[in-house]
């Protein structure tokens, strides 16, 4: 009960801290970008216009989530140590795990809030765009058929474009971005318990981000000739040392219109939870021993 109150106090403090660093300007910039992307390319085909809008928006969503996850986490803990704010906090009856969880949840909450807002703004723009584009396409189709357009033809044109428009599977892609960010946040928190500087945490965090994306490729390259037990072991070790971020890359297929299965989504979520629990546990073990 008291734990919860403390963790919430720390988390909400983290959110206020980041908000007062004006990170929300990013969201504003995002909205401008999405609207611009939505209405700036009338030259390409209808389907391509929708695809472009989605590509640009998801690029921005990913950038927001990853940068927030690594940079803001890196700012928090080393800054508290440097500013000695940590002394006053830990001199209260605050277990160190509460402090870590509070920071983690604060960052996660901010990323989640940002993603929800961005998802909503993007969905709205996409829906408006889709309505306009479909109307144009149907008009064009009717015009082309010179009044002979049948209902089935119109439905086909509409359905084709709707597949490129707003679908539920787009939100699963946003969820995958959130999971990736949550894993990266836990990793950045772990790094920042060892690191003494913000810069080190940011650089190492991004290094892991890059390697994490290459992990799948690396594995494919080495394990071309069948998989032995040793290969499994090696790949397991690799996935523990560095998160296999390829697991969360469903954005591209989803944007092309694929719908991920419930099974795939839950596996992905399960992996994310495993990584998060693992990293936070190690972070805690390092942090309890930390000399201030």
């Amino acid at each position, binding site marked *: 009960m008291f734990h919860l*109150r403390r963790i919430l106090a720390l988390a909400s403090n983290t959110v206020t801290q980041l908000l007062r660093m004006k990170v929300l300007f990013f969201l504003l910039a995002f909205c401008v970008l999405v609207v611009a992307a939505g209405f700036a390319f009338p030259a390409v085909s209808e389907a391509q216009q929708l695809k472009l809008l989605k590509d640009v928006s998801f690029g921005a969503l990913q950038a927001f989530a990853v940068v927030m996850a690594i940079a803001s986490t890196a700012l928090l803990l080393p800054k508290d140590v440097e500013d000695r704010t940590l*002394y*006053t906090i830990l001199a209260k009856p605050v277990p160190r795990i509460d402090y870590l969880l509070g920071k983690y949840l604060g960052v996660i909450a901010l990323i989640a809030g940002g993603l929800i807002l961005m998802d909503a703004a993007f969905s709205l723009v996409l829906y408006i765009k889709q309505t306009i584009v479909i109307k144009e396409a149907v008009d064009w189709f009717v015009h082309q058929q010179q009044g002979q357009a049948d209902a089935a033809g119109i439905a086909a044109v509409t359905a084709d474009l709707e597949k490129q428009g707003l679908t539920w599977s787009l939100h699963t892609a946003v969820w995958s971005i959130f999971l990736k960010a949550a894993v990266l946040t836990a990793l950045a928190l772990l790094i920042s318990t060892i690191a003494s500087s913000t810069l080190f945490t940011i650089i190492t965090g991004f290094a892991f981000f890059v390697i994490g994306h290459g992990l799948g490729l690396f594995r494919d390259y080495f394990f071309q000739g069948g998989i032995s037990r040793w290969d499994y072991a090696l790949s397991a070790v690799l996935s523990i040392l560095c998160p296999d971020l390829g697991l969360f890359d469903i954005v591209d297929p989803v944007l092309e219109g694929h719908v991920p299965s419930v099974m795939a989504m839950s596996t992905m979520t399960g992996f994310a939870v495993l990584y998060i629990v693992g990293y936070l546990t190690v972070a805690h073990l390092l942090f309890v021993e930390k000399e201030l």
Partner: protein
Amino acid sequence: MTAVEVKNLSKVFHRGLGQGFFTAVKDVSFTVAPGEVYGLIGPNGSGKSTTMKALLGLLAPTLGSTSIYGIDSRKVEARKAVGFLPENPYFYKHLTGLETMLFFGRLCGLGGKPLREHCVRLLEQTGLADAADRRLGGYSKGMLQRIGLAQALIHEPKLLVLDEPTAGVDPAGSRKIRDLILDCKQRGITVLVTSHLLEQIQEVCDRVGIMASGRMIKEGALKDLIAVDDQFEVLLQNTDAALEPQLREWLAQNYPNTQILRAGRPHTTLERLFLEVTESKSSD
């Protein structure tokens, strides 16, 4: 039960790769009884802050142990009864005075309307009522010190640990802090305090410990420490100006009307003692 117990505390810092070790605190022991005001003094770098940090569980002792009301400092429960003001305190710049107080209150498991009222009261007591709605980024050094003190008192602790509470505070403010410490003492709160303002330590403390280069070199009740053994103080009334070595004899013979009002060991000031012991320490 003692309020604070420091037993054979030693703290060794690693100086980074290949640079060896540094012993900041060497075999320091002392206790503070409940309700007592204990002053820890010593030159810069003598290990006072390190001792306090170990007591609060912020540093792990290399050797020895520390406890607060019988609970080992390394346990979280030990900190339930303690309010701590670190040296040069810094808080979150993005919070206002009141928000800072509410934040620390919540960390102590408090909440709701009573907490808010309590915070407002403490801000008034420390003279920050006007600044309560301003962000800490704009506070002056003395104001930060005061909010640090207010924050230390938020959960009505039984023990106050103050690391240089008057550093950077103006004379009037520092007198206020002294009064606040005396007020705490009156309410039965134990206080462990360090300061370089020895006059104030002398005014508020029951007992003092003097540290130099990581060791406790002198420790005891203030009035015993500043009593001087090999000297004699005579307080005379209706005297002539001249005072000579065989005063008593001479007095009895020549001035039978003069009475001795008080005779005993005179007190030096804590400051003089401090300089004496710490200088002899650094010269050997």
